[in-house]
């Protein structure tokens, strides 16, 4: 089995005023990406990326079911996210809401899509805010400060978008 390393290849674009689109290919079939995305013990291992440690994952994978992830960020503070599943197509698609509990107004609607080809899977997450203003509000508050502050703010916004389920 060959493993193609694809570290750092997530592509982030802004297709519309209120949207953020994240795309990444994985060297695994869609059912395994699905499993990693929806199994609590597995989510614990990757969801925080390199920004902390996941301490709690709840997944009630059915339409109307809730999810909630809590992590301890590297700064030592607790960060929690929750949402509700709106649509589930096994191995293909999940539509869910996402709320960063520190900024409850900035909830997004996230659409996860998995497309498998030749044993590899392209994963996309489209995060949609209720308005451009909500998306940009965070942005503007961060840009007024210095570069470091701005990056800290970006991190918070990014955390608020963290769209895993």
């Amino acid at each position, binding site marked *: *089995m060959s*493993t193609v*390393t*694809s*570290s*750092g*290849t*997530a*592509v*982030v*674009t*802004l297709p519309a*005023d209120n949207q*953020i689109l*994240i795309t*990444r290919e*994985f*060297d*695994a079939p869609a059912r*395994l*990406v699905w*499993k*990693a995305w929806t199994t609590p013990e*597995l989510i614990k*291992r*990757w*969801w*925080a*990326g*390199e*920004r902390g440690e996941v301490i709690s994952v709840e997944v009630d994978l059915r339409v109307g079911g809730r999810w909630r992830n809590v992590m301890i960020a590297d700064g030592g503070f607790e960060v929690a996210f929750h949402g509700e599943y709106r649509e589930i197509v096994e191995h293909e698609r999940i539509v869910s809401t996402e709320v960063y509990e520190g900024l409850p107004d900035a909830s997004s609607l996230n659409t996860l899509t998995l497309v498998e080809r030749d044993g590899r899977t392209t*994963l996309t997450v489209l995060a949609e805010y209720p308005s*451009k203003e909500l998306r*940009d509000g965070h*942005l503007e508050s961060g*840009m007024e400060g210095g570069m470091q502050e*701005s*990056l800290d703010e*970006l*991190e918070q*916004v*990014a*955390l608020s*978008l*963290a769209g*895993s389920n």
Partner: protein
Amino acid sequence: MARAATTADAFNAVAEPRRRQILDLLAGGEKPVNELVAVLALAQPLVSKHLRVLREVGLVEVRDSGRQRVYRLNARPLKDIDDWVSGYRRWWSGRFDRMDVVLAELKESEDGDEHGDQ
């Protein structure tokens, strides 16, 4: 579509597709306004309006060349947009790199199961 009047920053300026098109054209070299009008197939006042917005946020600069006004791209304000998008990229990249590790282990354990069945 109605749009807010604010053109305070590069984000607002490039939200308009025509203005992104103008930036693309200017990325190929400076151009007089009549050339932009011809390529875009838009009325001159509309092109001038877009150019004014782009100038206000510093994405476009202008100089007089004989009887013409020549426009050129200044990409520096785009860095704000790039910085912002990069914030997301760093976060998601770290997360997905971890997911690669999890997936590799899942694949391995599946292979193990298959061998076990034989």
